[in-house]
Structure formats: structure tokens, C-alpha cells
């Protein structure tokens, strides 16, 4: 702040002097400006100073002249007339210093004179008194320069000297700013380090020297500048932020883990199988499940409200997940940028950007070479395939058949699951000890097996279709997704049947309990002859009659599902990948054909399938977390372990997928799937929360009719009464309906706006393309001997006539909708804010001879007087102004 203030006062002095010299009535305005951001200020001054000088017309010099002069002055100080930038900086510095001294000696008298004069001014100017020291130095330097100057033109009078120094100041400042900019952007220059170092030294020396002279704190300003420049740099359209990179460290460390894991995994699986069987035992009443939590309204000193927080957390997870997914999707959509030119550079991008410079591992490099080659071949095949066509009827027939087959698979798997779940319900009615392990876990096993068998089946079927690999992949993913979801939902429906059965069962038990309690009380009064203060029945908690607690049952189902999913995944990797790799690798020595290159080969790492698995797993967590909070913990463990485990498997026994699937390109595809899964898993949970009555004797909501009654209770009992009023108003349908309506309208409006922008974007793109083509043509046939090209060139401007009006039409409504009053009011508004597109649009259409026609007929023609030009046309934005000139020409 201090520095600014000083600077402020300095410029005040400046302005005063200027006022004195030429009676320009501007000091107040300048003072204000000086208080503004210092960087801007100095820039402003750079522009302003020469203008004013010109305005005065004391000396009619052009800007170049002044620049030259100023340079000359500097060099003169060094006692030589060299104009070129000197190589050795320190030399220059010392020389200059010497020169200064000399000059100072020579021109001492005149300097003193001026100093006196200046001091007088200062006295007149009371404000600056406090900061005399700095100012003095400031002035001294100016005087030095002036002195130099007067050596060149000794007959000049005082006021002229001042004007010169002002120009010089501005120049110097400009140069200092330039040097600073250079320092900050130096690293962006494609120079050799030596040149950079030298340049840096020069610039730093220059800045240090003259910044003191100009009365600015060095470090601060430099810092501010750096901050500003970094901002500018960060704001660049193609920022230099790190994006997705290969976590090499992890890969390396994973290799170390591999030996440990081979053994660990086997134990791990065994443990899980054991755990699964005991799940019905102790786990059922552990913290993992809904039934563990009780319905005490508040716990402990801090009055922790367990039921309320249980509900809020359960619902809040969905809200949070939704937000995260949608935000990620939006970010991805932003990053996607222009997809229009995607097809334009297929081969060049493959050629110039496919090598990943991060690769530092020979095996990875080999893989990369292979995948690059395949991708090139693929593109070549694509290119060639564009030319030929085949029997389209056969193709269609095959595709229909394939789809029918897949539908059959999906239906069959759905039915199978329904059947199995029904069967398991029958088993559940029997005594637990009679059942085999297989019978107990039938559902999970069947579901996992289906997930294991069906995807390869789909792949085989999709061979019939002969889609392009990329499209085929999408189909494949969609089918697997449908399978998973279908299975999950069948499972859910079956589960809901069970829950309903349980609910009926529960009612009976509830009656029984009440009956038992009543009997107990009756007996108690009968025996002891007391009607009050009856002690509660003395039964150990283990023997109390309990309801089935359907929530816990549901939770258990989900946990079982997850655990069996983990098992199947791990076993598949162990057998399908590891064992296969071992066999292929070692049996290859004594086999009749080449196993590695031939039939079994190594397993491919199926990225898309694995991602789908993750998504699906996430869906199960979302669904089950409300009824089994421990599921989240299990899942964290699973993800952590599977990261290392799968990493090991990939590195040691998989080969990369033949088709390289670009995950970066289809990010939003997966995120979209995730969103869908989230929505689908949200529905049953919310449904059950809102409609099913909670069990009467277990869980945090026991004793309530509905789970959300907890919220009502809290509002009534814990919040001040006016809050209850507010809530009752807010939940009024009369209020909710308009709110929903408003949201719908907002969505509609935003949609319309985005459409409009999209259109204008497309137009711009087309124009850019057109411009490129035009330039291409211009470059190619300058003498236009080629008749065809000439025709094309004649056509091109005509073509470019068509879009502009439409572009303006699409642009205008959008703009008017968004900020209608401003667009016509402020000329600058259109050019600064949203109007960037507008500006470009119009300026691109500048060559359009029809442009003046689209302009509304003004009350008077554009004024020929330059002074008047600003007045009568306030409605013309800057863009328009640009578009205007050509027709006048």
C-alpha cells in the first residue's frame, strides 16, 4: 500500500506540474486514476503521455521520434552514440553510471535550478510533503535525464524540458514493464538456456536500475506482475495443467507386492467363504446392519440424534453422489471442447501424439508400439472400408438375429434369477441346519455365474453383426449393462416379495409380543396384587421374541451379493488370467503349436468390462448402504485390495486389449452409465423409505409408522415453533407446484439458450473452416491461372454471405433473453462479457456487403464528423463498429 501511495503522490506532483505548465484541467481525474490498480495505471499513462504531449503541440514529434530520442538520451549518458542493445550488461551499467556522474558534474547548475523549482512546487503541494525523500530521488533521476536531454538541445526552455521528461518517463516505464513481462514469460520462449540466462540478466539489471528511478518498490511490483502474468497464463485457452497421467510409481510398487499376494489371495478367499457362512450368525447383529442401531432419540451428552442422522446420512449419500457425478460430467463436457474437427486429423494425431513420453519401461514401450501399429492399421482399414459396400440385406438379417439371441439371453437370465430367489425363499422356511452350503448361497452363485458367462456369450453373438469395432464395443457394453441391471432388478423384485411376506409375518409376531406382554402384566398383578410400578419382564435379551427385521435381511442379501461378487472376480482373475498365463508360458516349451501366439494365448485386459464391473459394484453399494452401513467399509476394503491385486494381474499375466479403447474420449459415456445406475439404485431405496413401514422392534425407526416420521418429530420437538410453520408452508402443495413449474421453465429456458449458443458455435466453426479454405486457396493460386480455383474463390465469399444473418438471428434472441437491457445500452457490454461470440461473428462477417442492410435504419446516417461519431450511435456495440467501416470504404 505504501508503495502505491508514494507512487500516487508522485503522479500528483506530475499532474500538478503539468497543470502549471499547460493549464490542462485534469489533475483530479489523474489523481483518481493513480489510485486505481497501479499496473493498469502505468499502462494508461504510457498511452496518455504521448497523446497529451501531442495535444500541446509544443514540439511536433512523432512517437517514434520520441522513442529514438529517449534511447539516444540513454546512450548519450554513457558517452557514446551506440543504439544497439549491448551485449554485456554489467559493462553497460558501469558505463552508464560513469556517464551519469559526468553529466551530473557538467550540468550540475541546471539541475540545481530545477530542483529548486521543484521544491517550490512541493511546498505548494502540501500533500506530498511527507514523502519527500522518495520524491526527491524520483525527481533527481528525472533531472538527470533532463540534464542529458538539455545537453542535446540546450536552447529548450523549462516547460519543454518537462514535457520531454514526461515522455521519457512513460517510455521508461513502458520499457521496464516490458522487461518485467519478459522476465516472467522468459521460460515460455523457445530459446537456448544460455540466451535465456543472458536475457534474464539484462532484463533484471534494467528493471533494477530504472525501477528505483521510477519510484516503485521492486520486489512488490515484480511479485504483483508475476501473479498477474500467471493468472494470464492460467487463463490461456489451452492451459498447462497436468491431466491424466500414468501412475508409474504405483505400477512399480505393485510388482513388489505380487509375490506376497499370490499367497495372500488364496487365504483371503477361504476367509471370505468362511465369513459368508457366518454372516447369518454374529454379523447379523453387528454394527454392519440396520438392526444393530436402536431407536433411542438422543444419545450421550451431545444429544446425538441417531435415528435422524441415520436417515439423513442415508439420503444425503444419494444427494452427494448425484452432485459429484453430475459435476464430473459437466467438467468432462467442458474439457471435451470442439468435437467438430475430431475427424479432421485422425492420422496426424496418431502420428504425432500417440507416443507417450512418460513411458519408461521396455515392456510398456513394446505394448505401445504394438498398439500404435494396430491403431494405424485399424485406421487404414477404416479408410479402405469407406470405399466398399456389401450385401446390406444379409447384414441386417444377421443383426436382427443377433439382437433376438441377446434378448433371449437377457430374458433367460432374468427368469433364472427370479426362480432361484423364489427357491431360496422356500429354503429359508426350512431349518437352517438341513441346508447345504450350496443351497444357502444359490442366489449369489447364480448371479455371479451369469455375470461371468453372459458377456463372452454376447461377444460371440456380436460377431454376427460386423459392426465397426468402436460401435460394437458400445453395443457390447450396453448389453452387459442391461444384463447386470436386469439381474439386479429381478433380484430386487424377488426381495420385495420376501419383504412383504416378512411384513405379514411381523404383524403376527407383534401381536404375539403384545399378547405375551399383556399376559405377563396380568399374571404379575394377579400374583402380587399391584397395579402400578410393575417391573418390566425379566427376560434375557437373547430370548426376547423378535420380529424378522426385514431391513437387516435386505442388508444381508446385499452383503452376500457383494462378497460373492468379490470372490468371483478374484477367482476369475486367479484362474482365468493367472493360471492361463502360467500354462501358456510354461507348457509352450513342450507343445505342438505355439501357445503364446496361437489359440489360448494370454488373457486380454478388458478395460471396459472392468469399468462396468466397478460401476455396477458402486450401484450395489448405493442400494445396500442404507440397510447395511457396513457395506461401505467392505467395499473400501475390496477396492483397495483389488487395485493392487488387479494391478499385479495386469502387469504379470495380461496382454493389452487388441483394440485400444480410448477411455478419455468416452469418459462421459461411463459417467452417464454411473448416473443411470445411481438413479436406478436410488429408486428402490427411496421407495422403501417412503412406503414400507419399518420393523417394529429393530432399527433406529422402530415404533414409527414411517421412517420419515423422525424428521417430523425433530421439527416438532427440537426446532423452534416458527420453523415448524415454515416447514409446513414449504411442504404445502400450493408452494411445491409453482416451484416445480419454475424449475421446468428454467430448464426450458437454459436449454433454449444452450441451443442458441450451440448454433452460433457451429456457425463460427463453419466460418473458421471457410476462412481456412479461403486462405488455402489464396495461398495456392496467387495468380489464379487455375480456372477451377478461380471459380471456387468466386463462390466462397458468396457462400460466406449466407450464414451471417442467421447467425445474428440466433445470437440476438439469446443475448436479448439473457441481458436485454444492457446490450443496447452499453456499447462495451457486447464486446466484453458474453458477447465474445457476437464480436467474432460480426467481425467475421465484416466483408459482407449486406451487413448494413441488417442494421436497423437509424434516425440519421452515420455521422461523418469524427467528433460526433460517438454521440449518435450509442446502440452500436464495438463489434458493430468494426463491422461498419467496410461498406463506407
Amino acid at each position, binding site marked *: 500500500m505504501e508503495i502505491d501511495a508514494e507512487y500516487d503522490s508522485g503522479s500528483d506532483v506530475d499532474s500538478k506540474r503539468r497543470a502549471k505548465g499547460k493549464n490542462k484541467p485534469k489533475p483530479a481525474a489523474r489523481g483518481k486514476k493513480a489510485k486505481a490498480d497501479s499496473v493498469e495505471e502505468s499502462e494508461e499513462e504510457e498511452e496518455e503521455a504521448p497523446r497529451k504531449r501531442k495535444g500541446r503541440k509544443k514540439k511536433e514529434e512523432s512517437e517514434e521520434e520520441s522513442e529514438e530520442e529517449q534511447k539516444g538520451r540513454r546512450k548519450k549518458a554513457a558517452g557514446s552514440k551506440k543504439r544497439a542493445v549491448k551485449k554485456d550488461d554489467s559493462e553497460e551499467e558501469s558505463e552508464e553510471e560513469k556517464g551519469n556522474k559526468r553529466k551530473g558534474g557538467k550540468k550540475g547548475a541546471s539541475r540545481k535550478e530545477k530542483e529548486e523549482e521543484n521544491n517550490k512546487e512541493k511546498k505548494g503541494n502540501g500533500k506530498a510533503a511527507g514523502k519527500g525523500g522518495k520524491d526527491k530521488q524520483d525527481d533527481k533521476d528525472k533531472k538527470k535525464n533532463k540534464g542529458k536531454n538539455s545537453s542535446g538541445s540546450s536552447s529548450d526552455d523549462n516547460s519543454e524540458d518537462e514535457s520531454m521528461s514526461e515522455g521519457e518517463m512513460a517510455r521508461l516505464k513502458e520499457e521496464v514493464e516490458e522487461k518485467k513481462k519478459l522476465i516472467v514469460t522468459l521460460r515460455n520462449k523457445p530459446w537456448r*538456456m544460455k540466451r535465456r540466462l543472458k536475457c534474464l540478466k539484462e532484463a533484471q539489471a534494467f528493471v533494477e536500475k530504472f525501477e528505483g528511478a521510477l519510484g516503485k518498490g521492486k520486489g512488490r511490483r515484480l511479485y504483483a506482475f508475476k501473479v498477474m502474468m500467471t493468472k494470464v497464463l492460467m487463463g490461456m485457452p489451452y492451459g498447462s495443467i497436468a491431466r491424466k497421467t500414468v501412475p508409474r510409481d504405483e505400477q512399480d510398487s505393485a510388482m513388489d507386492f505380487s509375490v506376497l499376494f499370490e499367497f495372500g489371495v488364496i487365504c483371503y478367499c477361504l476367509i471370505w467363504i468362511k465369513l459368508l457362512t457366518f454372516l447369518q450368525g454374529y454379523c447379523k447383529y453387528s454394527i454392519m446392519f440396520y438392526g444393530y442401531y436402536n431407536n433411542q432419540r438422543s444419545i450421550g451428552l451431545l444429544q446425538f440424534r441417531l435415528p435422524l442422522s441415520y436417515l439423513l446420512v442415508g439420503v444425503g449419500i444419494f444427494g452427494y453422489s448425484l452432485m459429484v457425478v453430475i459435476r464430473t460430467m459437466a467438467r468432462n463436457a467442458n474439457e471435451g471442447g470442439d468435437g467438430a474437427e475430431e475427424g479432421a486429423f485422425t492420422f496426424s*494425431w496418431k502420428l504425432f501424439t500417440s507416443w507417450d513420453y512418460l513411458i519408461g519401461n521396455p515392456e510398456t514401450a513394446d505394448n505401445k508400439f504394438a498398439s500404435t501399429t494396430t491403431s494405424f492399421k485399424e485406421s487404414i482399414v477404416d479408410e479402405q472400408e469407406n470405399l466398399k459396400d456389401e450385401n446390406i440385406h444379409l447384414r441386417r438379417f444377421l443383426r436382427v438375429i443377433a439382437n433376438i439371441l441377446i434378448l433371449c439371453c437377457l430374458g433367460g437370465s432374468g427368469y433364472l434369477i427370479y426362480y432361484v430367489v423364489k427357491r431360496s425363499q422356500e429354503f429359508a422356511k426350512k431349518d437352517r441346519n438341513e441346508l447345504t452350503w450350496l443351497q444357502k448361497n444359490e442366489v449369489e452363485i447364480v448371479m455371479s455365474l451369469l455375470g461371468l458367462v453372459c458377456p463372452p456369450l454376447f461377444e460371440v453373438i456380436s460377431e454376427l453383426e460386423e459392426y465397426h469395432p468402436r460401435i460394437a464395443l458400445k453395443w457390447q457394453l450396453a448389453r452387459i449393462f442391461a444384463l447386470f441391471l436386469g439381474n439386479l432388478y429381478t433380484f430386487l423384485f424377488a426381495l420385495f416379495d420376501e419383504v412383504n411376506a416378512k411384513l405379514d409375518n411381523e404383524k403376527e409376531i407383534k401381536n404375539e409380543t403384545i399378547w405375551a406382554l399383556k399376559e405377563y402384566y396380568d399374571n404379575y398383578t394377579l400374583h402380587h396384587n399391584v397395579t402400578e410400578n410393575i417391573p418390566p419382564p425379566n427376560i434375557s435379551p437373547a430370548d426376547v421374541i423378535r420380529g424378522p427385521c426385514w431391513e437387516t435381511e435386505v442388508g444381508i442379501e446385499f452383503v452376500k451379493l457383494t462378497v460373492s461378487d468379490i470372490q468371483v472376480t478374484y477367482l476369475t482373475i486367479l484362474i482365468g488370467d493367472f493360471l492361463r498365463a502360467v500354462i501358456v508360458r510354461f507348457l509352450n516349451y513342450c507343445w505342438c503349436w505355439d501357445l503364446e501366439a496361437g489359440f489360448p494365448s494370454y488373457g486380454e485386459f478388458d478395460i471396459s468390462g472392468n469399468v462396468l464391473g466397478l460401476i455396477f459394484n458402486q450401484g450395489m453399494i448405493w442400494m445396500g448402504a442404507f440397510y447395511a452401513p457396513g457395506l461401505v467399509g467392505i467395499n473400501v476394503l475390496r477396492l483397495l485390495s483389488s487395485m493392487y491385486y488387479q494391478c499385479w494381474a495386469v502387469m504379470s499375466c495380461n496382454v493389452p486389449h487388441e483394440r485400444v479403447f480410448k477411455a478419455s474420449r468416452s469418459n462421459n459415456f461411463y459417467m452417464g452409465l454411473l448416473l443411470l445406475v445411481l438413479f436406478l439404485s436410488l429408486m428402490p431405496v427411496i421407495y422403501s423409505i417412503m412406503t414400507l413401514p419399518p420393523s417394529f422392534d429393530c432399527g433406529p425407526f422402530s415404533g414409527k409408522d414411517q421412517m420419515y416420521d423422525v424428521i417430523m418429530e425433530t421439527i416438532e420437538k427440537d426446532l423452534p415453533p416458527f420453523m415448524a410453520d415454515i416447514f409446513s408452508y414449504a411442504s404445502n402443495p400450493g408452494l411445491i407446484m409453482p416451484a416445480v413449474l419454475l424449475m421446468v421453465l428454467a430448464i426450458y429456458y437454459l436449454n433454449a439458450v444452450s441451443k442458441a449458443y450451440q448454433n452460433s458455435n457451429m456457425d463460427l466453426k463453419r466460418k473458421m473452416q471457410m476462412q481456412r479454405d479461403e486462405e488455402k486457396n489464396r495461398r495456392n493460386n496467387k495468380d489464379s491461372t487455375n480456372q477451377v480455383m478461380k471459380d471456387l474463390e468466386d463462390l466462397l465469399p458468396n457462400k460466406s454471405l449466407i450464414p451471417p444473418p442467421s447467425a445474428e438471428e440466433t445470437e440476438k434472441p439469446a443475448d436479448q433473453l439473457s441481458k436485454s437491457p444492457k446490450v443496447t445500452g452499453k456499447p462495451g457490454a457486447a464486446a466484453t462479457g458474453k458477447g465474445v461470440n457476437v464480436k467474432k461473428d460480426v467481425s467475421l462477417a465484416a466483408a459482407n456487403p449486406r451487413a448494413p442492410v441488417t442494421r436497423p435504419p437509424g434516425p440519421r446516417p452515420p455521422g461523418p464528423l469524427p467528433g460526433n461519431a460517438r454521440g449518435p450511435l450509442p446502440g452500436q456495440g464495438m463489434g458493430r463498429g468494426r463491422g461498419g467501416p467496410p461498406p463506407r470504404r
Partner: protein
Amino acid sequence: MGNKQTIFTSQQLDAYQDCTYFTRKEILRLFHRYRDLAPQLVPLDYKNQPEVRLPYELIGSMPELKDNPFRQRIAEVFSEDGEGNMTLDDFLDMFSVLSEMAPRDLKAYYAFKIYDFNNDDFICKSDLNLGKTLNKLTRNELTEDEVRMVCEKVIEEVIWTMMDRLSLEDFQHMIMRAPDFLSTFHIRI
């Protein structure tokens, strides 16, 4: 606290910091990486800027570069003598440009130089095939016809002019739109 290092003067370090995208620590780390390539050649005192050049064979054997098919070109482009022998300055320069902080423009400029095998400021067909970019990228696994076709396609896609070679401008135009360029033209050290 920070007086431990005696390799550079603090001015030198500041200057390097201003000229590269590295912090003090990273510069020192890079110096040690550089020195580890040839401990007997590189002194531990850089205060008076000794003239030390490491031959390309040493530079190219760094794990970061040794699997890169373009390592020779990278070293050539960034070395002052144009033959891959690097001073510490060149070395810092190289990793600064390839660091993730470097802006796209700078990276594009150097990428162009790397792919411009014959240093004529244009990428022409001879830079693409004949054992150059394409063949290095695919280890000569494409047939001659395929190579020719790819080259033609690339030229057709990128080039504005009738000339059959890419100028820096064309190259930048193309590379600015590439989605993976920033993430792939990057070495972490």
C-alpha cells in the same frame, strides 16, 4: 536451513528458476540426476559454470528416455551442438519443456523441431517415412504401401498449402486440437 547446497550460488538458482518451470528443489534434483549420469565428469561446484558436456550415449540411457523412439531427436534438438551432447543448461531446458507446467505453445514448438528430422523448418515426407517418425513409432511393422498411405493422409489432413510439407504453423494448428498432446508430450522426472 537452506544453506546446505553449495553447488550453485543463490543467484544462479534464482536465474534457473526464472528460466525454467522448476522449483529450487527440482533444479537441484535434476542436477543430481545429471551428475549421476557421469559422476567423474560433472563437478559438484557449478558456481563458475564449468564447460561440461555429457555425450549423447549417457543422456540417451536415462530410464526416462531410453525407451523413447525419438530419444536421439530429443537430445539433438535440445543440445546446443545439435548432436545430442548436453550441458547442464541443455539438460534443464529439456526437462523444463517436457515438464507438465510448460505451456502448449512451447511444447508444440519443440515437438515440431523433434519431428523435423532434417532441420529444414518443415516436416516433409522424408521426415515422416524412410525410417523416420512413422517407422520409429511402429518399429517398421507397416508395409511400404501402408506407410505411403499414412504419409499422404497426414499431409492431406494438415497442410493448407499446395506444398507437400508441413510448416510450423500447420503443425501447431493441428497439434493444438489434439486431445492427448499435453498428456503425452510430458516427462516426469
